[in-house]
């Protein structure tokens, strides 16, 4: 069988005003989301943000309280999961413990009554894709976590569905394996071109895997954009703080015309207006250490941590902590006073109350 013959072109997926409540608890506010054909879309959020609920509504395991869901040109809102042409990888893998690896992988074909010979060939093919060929006779209990993960993947790809759904598929793996599987997933998705919706709370997974990231918080879509845009151009304070490791520095103060004032320092910012309670945001790599200057941000060095390729310096400025990425050769004693220089074009100002971005 030619490889190209099995590949379905990616299909678009859309959420139109989808809502979900459990009793009186609203877990998903009106969600509008258009996923492009063949796109790798990551739903990113903390637990309780509604990301898994959104995925389960798309899978049909949960029904929406209101709104429509479409896959391709079909409205699937009221269609049974098995007719949606999707396959899903669960966080817990959900392997059938009483079936061998081959039987697990072949299960989607078995329930569709695919002829035996064809099924065997497909199992071999799918297992080869995830390097499991030599383990087909084993039972899930005899496999390591990474191998179980591969079985779950093989079971998802054997059918070549229109859409892949993945619910934190890597979070049960150890850090090293996770990095490896991440690269494999990305490669696999690229070669299949199948639309993929991936749920995670891990921002690194989101940044590395996604074509676009949808950040959810408290059931509300905060921002939907490419990883670069999410990082460089956060829509609001939540996104700014959620993405980035270490997270963006936050200094509380006030905005008066185009000057941000905090802790006796005044920073020129590219925004006009007057806000009594504002927040200045700047990423650690956009800060530099400098000699203390009057009117500039000045603080005491709290800790220095050598990370490897850089040193992370934490300063205490008033009640706020500010992290600065310095060179790996930087040495300073705690308690030493230092000034912080910030790149003006890399500054963000947010309204402290609403979290809205002002710059």
């Amino acid at each position, binding site marked *: 069988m030619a490889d190209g013959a099995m590949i379905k072109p990616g299909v678009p997926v859309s959420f139109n005003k989808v809502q979900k409540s459990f009793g009186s608890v609203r877990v998903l506010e009106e969600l509008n989301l258009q996923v492009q054909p063949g796109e790798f879309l990551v739903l990113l959020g903390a637990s309780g943000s509604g990301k898994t609920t959104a995925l389960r509504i798309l899978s049909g395991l949960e029904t929406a309280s209101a709104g429509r869901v479409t896959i391709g040109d079909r409205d699937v809102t009221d269609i049974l999961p*098995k007719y949606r042409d999707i396959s899903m990888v669960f966080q*817990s*893998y*959900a*392997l059938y*413990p*009483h079936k061998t690896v081959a039987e697990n992988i072949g299960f989607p074909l078995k*329930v*569709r009554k695919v002829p035996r010979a064809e099924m065997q060939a497909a199992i071999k093919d799918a297992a080869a894709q995830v390097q499991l060929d030599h383990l087909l006779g084993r039972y899930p209990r005899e496999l390591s976590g990474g191998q179980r993960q591969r079985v779950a993947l093989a079971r998802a790809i054997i059918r070549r569905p229109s859409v892949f759904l993945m619910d934190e598929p890597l979070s049960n793996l150890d850090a090293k394996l996770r990095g490896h599987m991440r690269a494999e997933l990305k490669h696999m998705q690229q070669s299949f071109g199948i639309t993929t919706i991936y749920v995670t709370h891990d921002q690194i997974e989101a940044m590395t895997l996604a074509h676009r990231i949808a950040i959810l918080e408290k059931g509300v879509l905060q921002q939907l954009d490419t990883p670069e845009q999410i990082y460089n151009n956060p829509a609001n304070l939540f996104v700014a703080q959620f993405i980035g490791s270490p997270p963006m520095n936050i200094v509380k103060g006030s905005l008066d015309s185009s000057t941000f004032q905090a802790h006796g320092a005044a920073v020129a910012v590219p925004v006009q207006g007057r806000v009594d309670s504002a927040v200045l945001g700047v990423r650690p790599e956009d800060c530099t250490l400098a000699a203390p200057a009057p009117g500039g941000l000045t603080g005491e060095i709290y800790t220095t941590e050598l990370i490897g390729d850089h040193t992370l310096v934490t300063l205490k400025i008033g009640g706020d902590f500010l992290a600065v990425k310095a060179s790996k050769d930087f040495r300073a004693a705690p308690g030493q006073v230092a000034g912080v220089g910030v790149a003006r074009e890399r500054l963000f100002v947010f309204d402290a109350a609403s979290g809205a971005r002002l710059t």
Partner: protein
Amino acid sequence: MSQANFKFEKSDRSLMERLFEPPAPGKMSFTGNLVAYALLLFWSAFVLFPIYWVIITSFKDAKIVNEGPYYIPFYDFQPTLDGWRALTIDPDCGPYAFVHQIGVNLYNAFAYLVSPLVTIDRMQPAICKVLLAYQNSLIISIFATALCMIVGSMAAYALARVAYAPKFGNIVMFVILALGSILTSTYAGVHWALATVAALALFFLLARSLGRFFKSTLGNNDILFWIISQRILPPIVVVIPIYMMFQAVGLVDSHLALILVYAVANLPIVVWLMYDFFRSLPIELEESAQLDGATRFGIFWDIVLPLTRPGFAATTLLTLILNWNEYLFAVFLSTAKAQTMPIMIQAKNAGERGTLWWEMSAIIVVMIIPVILMAIFLQRFIAKGVLLGAVKG
């Protein structure tokens, strides 16, 4: 606290420490072991003695039983085969009769199977009462257990995984209409079939139209409690109505009557136990199968049942034993043809000669053999660790 309190060498330990402290983590202390094994030995003796007593009593005769108690064969008393001979002394119970009866039964079964095509006269087997009762007990318990497990486990699975919300108003309506159909057919002379059909039609009509206005609903827990509550009712309360019911349809003294009654009587236990086993399964397995395209029944058969096999086997064994030992319903619902083993045993208690303990014991020994075999057979399935590797990372 000083380090000196820790004893690293065995020889450092005092007598008290050696007696009461575990030698290593995960082990028991000497005294702990002693107490545990003493209790286990005592309990084993407690449990096994009745079986031993029944077996030796089956080799006693009237004189030995009345002089007794004697405990050790050949030492205390000379064993005889009186009890066992009574089982076979009936000319219809010899080895020849045994084989003959099996043959006749097979012949009759064949005659029954082809009866829609050709009518063959059935043969009357020579009746050996014990053998007949044994056969009845086997047929009734196996079929009742099978029926009960099939219906009960499917009901339990549905309750464990599907959220039902019957409207309270609809239930009340159903009860009123059922009463109405009974009253009209009994007192107003309406044919019962007509009354039932009319009531059912009326119910569906009203449930569709009026049902929309009912607000309060019941949940799965209410249904489960309703099913379990059937078992709270003492069977003696319902045995007379059940007898009259089966008499009305002409099923008294038939296998079918006992099979149905046993299946219904044990259904609550099966539903209750299996519900717990199904609930303990990780739901992702079923969700995954659902996405993979399996049907609800396919999931139940291919995923859920194999994973609950230990629970299923244990519940089957329990139900089988309950059915095998059942006495109350059997004594009311069977008179001759459908008599079961417990009735045969009870029969040895009556008569002008008093209780024939040795004959009774012989029957009991015969009766407990299949249960022991079944327990050994099912033991293999009641093993743990089936779920290993399902969802743990």
